[in-house]
Every structure is written in C-alpha cells, then in structure tokens.
C-alpha cells in the first residue's frame, strides 16, 4: 500500500513531451555506430593512406559479409530475448551440403535455393525445440551448433569438397564481382535492406519487438508468441544459410571447418550495432555496420603490421569499448530526457 501511495504522488504531475526527447529520437540509433565506422576508416587512412584505396575498402567489406549476414539475422532472435548460437554450424552445413549437391550433378542455381531452404529449416528446428521442449534457446542452439557442424564434418569426411563446377555462373558471378563490387557485398546490402524493412515495417517485426519488450504482456495481448519465436529463429537460420551459400560461391569449395566462432562475432556485431540482449529493440543496419567495424579493425591491424595473432585481442577490445560506450550514452540520454 505504501507503494501505491508513492505512485499516486508521481501520477499527479503529467510530464509534457519534451522537445529535446523528440529530437533525440530523430537522431537514429544507428548514427553512433556509423560515426564510429567512418572515424575508424578515416583514422586508419590518415596514418596508412593505402587503406583508403577503394579496392582495399571493398575487400575489407567483403570480409564482413558472412558475419554481417549472421548478425543481421541474429537481430530477430535477440530482439525477442532469444539467441542463436548455431549460425556458425548452420553456415558450415549449408556450404558442405551445397558442395555435395553440386558435385553430384545438381545445377548450382538449383542447389542454392535448396540449401537456403534447408538453412531456414534448421533455424525453424531450433525454434521448434526451444518452444516445445521448453528449453532456453541458448542451450538448444549450443547443442544444435555442434550437431550441425558435426553433420557437416561427417558428410564431408572432415575434408574440403573441391569437386564443384567452377565454370558455372554461380561461382563466376556470385563468387566474383558485379559492376566492380564484390557480389557478396551487394547481397549483404540487399539482405540488410530487406531485413531492416521486415524488422521495422511489418507486423512480424513489430510482434518480435513486442514479445521481446514484455513477453507476459505479449501473451496476454493474444500474440502467437510460439509461432513468432519459430519464425524469428527461422530468419536467423536463413541469414546464416545465405552467408554459407555466398561462402561456397567465393571459396569454390565446401569447407566444414569454416565459420567456427562466427556466432559469437555475429552476436558481438549485433550488440555493437545497438541490439541489446534484453530484447525489445534491435537494428539490422546497426548489426551490419557492427560487422563492418570489426572487419575494419582486423584489416587495420594488417596495415599497421601488427601480428595477425593479435586479431582476437583487438576484436575483444572493440566489443568491450563499443558496448561500454553505448551503455554510457544510453544512460546519459535517459538522464537528459
């Protein structure tokens, strides 16, 4: 009863909407990460002008494609308080199954949609197990990550599968460049735009955010929470499969050991991009930019002739600094509004 009394006194003073708050909403959440990315590129460019060479920038961007796609897909589970640790395994399995299909004579452009469908199915499996076995998605996908990669390894007998029709336009065009830009980078941009629209402008996106914001209220409001969860996990699986398909086209082989640890980098990229683990919010462009930031840092190390073995250290430092800065910024913003 004392609590209700204190709330009552607070109720007495309705706050007029402040202009500053409206302004801060205009400045999109992504502005911060984009600024960091630009500063990083310019900063490195000042000391090592060769870094700003368009070819170098494009190949740096190309390196961000796989993690970028996974991060963009990961926004969906993260925004509804779930997580998908199986994207790395899904990525490897997609690659291997694609390579096997193409080796065994399936035309590459037919094999591609098949493996994309399979990747989405794997995501759906994660969602179904999470929902119906009532196990946290963290644990389910921790297990399926191993399952998926295990199948990939067994399927490929632990080796890379090279016997693919390299002359197919699947490898030439999708693995190469279009209009002078790596095709994979174009696919990342396109997928980023589509997923952004799905996340911010459709009922499904709004449902994902609603569940993540308050699962109890969402259920009592009649939202089909289970179905939304399965769909969100499917999205994540599909994005990982797209990354695997692009990797197959680029590497001209199916490598079951590729993509190990990508899931954690992807989660880091999503968090850097402003998708909190607490759910309710998320940003697909932010996640893509987060992946680009990580790729720029890795590339910059090469330009500064820092031994490649420091890459993990640098990535860890970037994640910590970016997330701490973001948290500080948010605290500051809530205090001023």
């Amino acid at each position: 009863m004392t609590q209700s009394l204190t709330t009552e006194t607070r109720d007495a003073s309705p706050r007029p909407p402040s202009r500053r708050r409206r302004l801060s909403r205009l400045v999109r959440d992504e502005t911060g990460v984009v600024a960091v990315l630009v500063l990083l590129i310019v900063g490195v460019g000042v000391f090592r002008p060769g870094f700003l060479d368009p070819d170098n920038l494009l190949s740096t961007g190309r390196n961000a494609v796989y993690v970028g796609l996974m991060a963009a897909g990961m926004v969906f589970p993260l925004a509804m308080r779930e997580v998908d640790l199986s994207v790395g395994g899904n990525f490897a399995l997609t690659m291997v199954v694609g390579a096997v299909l193409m080796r065994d004579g399936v035309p590459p452009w037919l094999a591609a949609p098949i493996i994309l469908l399979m990747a989405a199915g794997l995501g759906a499996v994660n969602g179904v197990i999470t929902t119906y076995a009532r196990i946290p998605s963290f644990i389910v996908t921790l297990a399926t990550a191993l399952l998926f990669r295990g199948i990939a390894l067994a399927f490929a007998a632990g080796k890379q599968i090279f016997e693919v029709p390299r002359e197919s336009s699947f490898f030439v065009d999708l693995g190469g460049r279009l209009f002078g830009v790596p095709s994979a980078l174009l696919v990342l941009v396109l997928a980023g735009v589509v997923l952004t629209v799905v996340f911010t402008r459709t009922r499904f996106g709004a449902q994902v955010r609603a569940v993540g914001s308050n699962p109890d209220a969402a259920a009592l409001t009649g939202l089909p929470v289970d179905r939304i969860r399965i769909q969100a996990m499917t999205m994540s699986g599909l994005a990982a499969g797209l990354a695997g398909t692009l990797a197959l086209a680029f590497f001209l082989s199916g490598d079951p050991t590729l993509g190990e640890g990508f899931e954690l980098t992807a989660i880091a990229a999503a968090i850097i991009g402003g998708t909190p683990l607490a759910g309710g919010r998320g940003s697909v462009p932010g996640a893509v930019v987060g992946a680009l930031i990580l790729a720029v840092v890795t590339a910059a190390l090469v330009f500064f002739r820092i031994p490649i073995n420091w890459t993990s250290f640098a990535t860890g430092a970037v994640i910590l600094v970016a997330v701490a800065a973001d948290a500080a910024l948010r605290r500051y913003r809530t205090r001023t509004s």
Partner: protein
Amino acid sequence: MLHATGLVKRYGGVTALDGADLELRGGEIHALVGENGAGKSTLVKILSGALGPDGGEIALNGTPTRFTGPRDAAARGIAMVAQELSLFPDLSVAENLFVTALPRRFGLLSPAEMERRAAPVLAGLGLDDVPVHAPVAGLNLADRQLLEVCRALLATPRVLMLDEPTSALPPAAVDRLETVLRQVAARGIAVLYISHMLQEVRRMADRVSVLRDGRPALRGERAGGLSLDDLVRAMLGDGAPAPAPAGATADPVAGDPERTAHDGAVPDAAALTLSHVTVPGAVTDMSLSVAAGEIVGVAGLEGAGHRAVLDVVCGLRRPASGRVTLPGGGTPRSVRDAVRQGVAFVPGDRKRFGLMLDQTVWENATAVRWLGAARGSWWQHRRSLRARAQANLRRMRFHGDIDGRTGELSGGNQQKVVFAKWLDTDPSVIVLDDPTRGVDVGARGEMHDIVRDLAATGRVVLLASTDLAELTELCHRVVVFQRGEATGELRGAELTEQRLSTAVNGS
C-alpha cells in the same frame, strides 16, 4: 514491550500514517487490521526499522528508541516475517535457516552442525518431518511459511511481526500456524499479526487494533468482545454514511433486483455464462451468467476463488469441468483464443502484464488488434495505425504524446493506454482485475466512467478489485466467494462496503 504512539508518515503530499498507536505486550497475539491503503504496511515498516517515522515515538521496554535500519531493529529483538516469502528456493532448509551465519568447520560448511542446530527449532514448530537437507523449493507453501517463522525465531526475538501470513494458506495450515504462534506467545514473545481475514483475527488474536486512513480506529481491544460487525465498522468507519453505489442512488427503485443501467438491454439475454465450472484448487461447481450491459463484480479474500473466474473467462486457465460460453457462443481455449473471441483483459499490474513500457504509446495502443488478433495489413501503415490509436486514446480522454515512451506516462495514463488497446478490437467481454491499482483519484473516477460507458454500449463487464469501494460504486451486482464457492450475491441497496466486507469475511 513495544509501544508506538502518534506515528506519522508522509509520502510527498500523501499522509499514510496520521497518529497511529500500537502497544504490543509480551505473551500476546496482537492483530492489526485495516483496509488496503489504511497504513498497515507503513506502520509495520516503521516498527521493523525499514522506514523512519516523520513524527511520533517508539518505546522498546519503556525506553524511547529510534531504529537506524532493519538490521538495528533486528539486533534489538524485532523479527519480521514479510508478506512476500524471502526464502531461497534452491538452498536447503538448513541453509535457509542459517543463511546469515552458516555454521562452518575449518572454513567449510558443516552440514552436521547445521542439522544439529536446525532439528530442535524445526521440531518446535511441528516441522520435524521436513528434510533438513532438501531444497526449500520442494516444500509446500505452508511449510515454507512456517520455515520463515522458524528463521525469524532463531534470532530469539522479543517481538515477532507477520505481514499477512495466512493470505495464501489453506485452512489446515492456518490452524498449524495458529498453534505455532500460540507457542511463540507462550514464551513471552509479543506477536503482531497483520491480516484482513477478519474471522481468523477474531479466532487467533488476543487483542485487535484497527487502522483506518492512517489513524487508529481500535486500539488494542480484547478480541473476545468484538463481533465481526464491530471490526467491519471499525475498518470502514460508521460515522460517515456508507458511500452508496453510484448506480443505486441514481435509481429510485433501489429495491428492485432488475434495476439500473442494463435496463436498456434485453435482461435475460445472458451474454456470458459459466456453467458448473470447476478449477481444481480454485473454484468448485461455479455457475454465473452475465447479461450484456451488466457490470458484475466478483469478491472474496485472497484465494477465495473469485480470481479464477476471471482466469477461465480470459483463457488463462481451463476449467477441469464445466463450460464457459462467450457471447459469440464459443469457449475460450487459450488467452489468444479468448482475445480473438472478443475478450479484453485489463490487469492491475499493467507494468508486468499490460504494457510494453519501452515502446511508444501508439505501438501499445495498436498491439491487440494489429499484433495480437492480427487484423489489418501485414505492412505497418504507420499513419493509419497512429490514427486509430489516436482516436481510441481520445475516447479514453488520454492527453499526451502518442509518440512518447509508454513508461514515461503516469499510472493513470498508462491504464488509459491499456483500455485503448483493448477498445481497438471492439471486445464483447471486458475483464478487469484491479483496474485502478496505483492510479490517482481523478484518474480512478475517469476510469469508472469509461467502464460504465463500455457497459452501456452492451458489453459484459466482469470486475475483481481489492478496493471494495470500487466494487460497490461500479457494479450492478457482486458475487461473493468463500473457499472456492460462490456464497452470496449483493445487489441494489444491499451493495454497500459494510455488507460486502462482512459477506467476504463470512459469518
């Protein structure tokens, strides 16, 4: 033993306690009774050192005292068993008992020592059959409650205070608690027992104090000489005329059972029916039918089963037997199913169950129709969604920024957003659970007008409330529950706070 006089406590402009007195004596069970918001919890928090008073004084064994905090009060022999259980479910019974000072040997926990010390204490409270090393999560509610008492007693207190200890207990467990409290009192400890279960108070307490609006209405009267009516009168006040239900005063033929607002509707067209509904552990063989345009209240003490009626209508629980029929003829199979069949649910705990606090007002206001019932386009047509939200919010007399974050609104405005989001689907049944909890008086009045308007347009309204005045003001009739059964119904002129309180507490 512990004597408080003239305690005053204010929160901002609201006075929670205004000269409260309480005298606790060793060896006696003293009950503290009062309506919600009468100041019971505030008083107990002051006595246990959790809050400092703004006025008045506390004397412990005759010497004026000021507690610096709960630890200070505990060190001086004040033990408190809070309303919310504060046990650690994953720790064992013994670990819970000694959680502040775990017995150790060579720096490691000593289970043997713990067992040796726990056993006599547990046996003293009739908990001998409780496994000392089993996790607390496996105990039933009554055992856990007693364990909490047990933990409080380990500190060998002089005063033991319990905040609504029986609210969640079945009758047999209440008897056990009574025995235990008697034993505790027999050791010369002063027991303070807060409750609004008036029957129990009369049975268990030696003395009774009643708080009304932060002032003492009864000061430590002997319980034996008090009737249920005396207690109800002390709680609600008898000097002022009982606030008549709004519907009843407007109606000249108050005695007529078929009266008031739903006269316009066809009286015997039962829109919502529950027939022989049984929910194990909650209600047994409950039948109820509510006509369109009617506002029907369900009332009872905690655990009396009235809330289960709301649950089955909302699809939160499914009855083990019996049938719930919604106005459309369907039966609610799940929450989602109920929502799709036009059931709206306005919870009291809107922060937890009603709203997405970090999202904008218009997003919340469109959540039921667009997200829940999945009506309208799959594409987010922001302009039309915002327009719908705006229109519904305006009907709720919401004045605020619909693009603002919902968490920044006042409690009253937040509840208007909850109403607005349900209105968006044009529901036929509106279920309200404590709809004005934590809402200021002005907003409460507005909310009541809204509910009356909704009923007047032919909807079924079902209301549960911890605020008896709300039930008497809003409802055409109130069904009273005791121990899982509907034991009576009040309507018209009989529907007063006094009668309701008496009926709820049973006689």
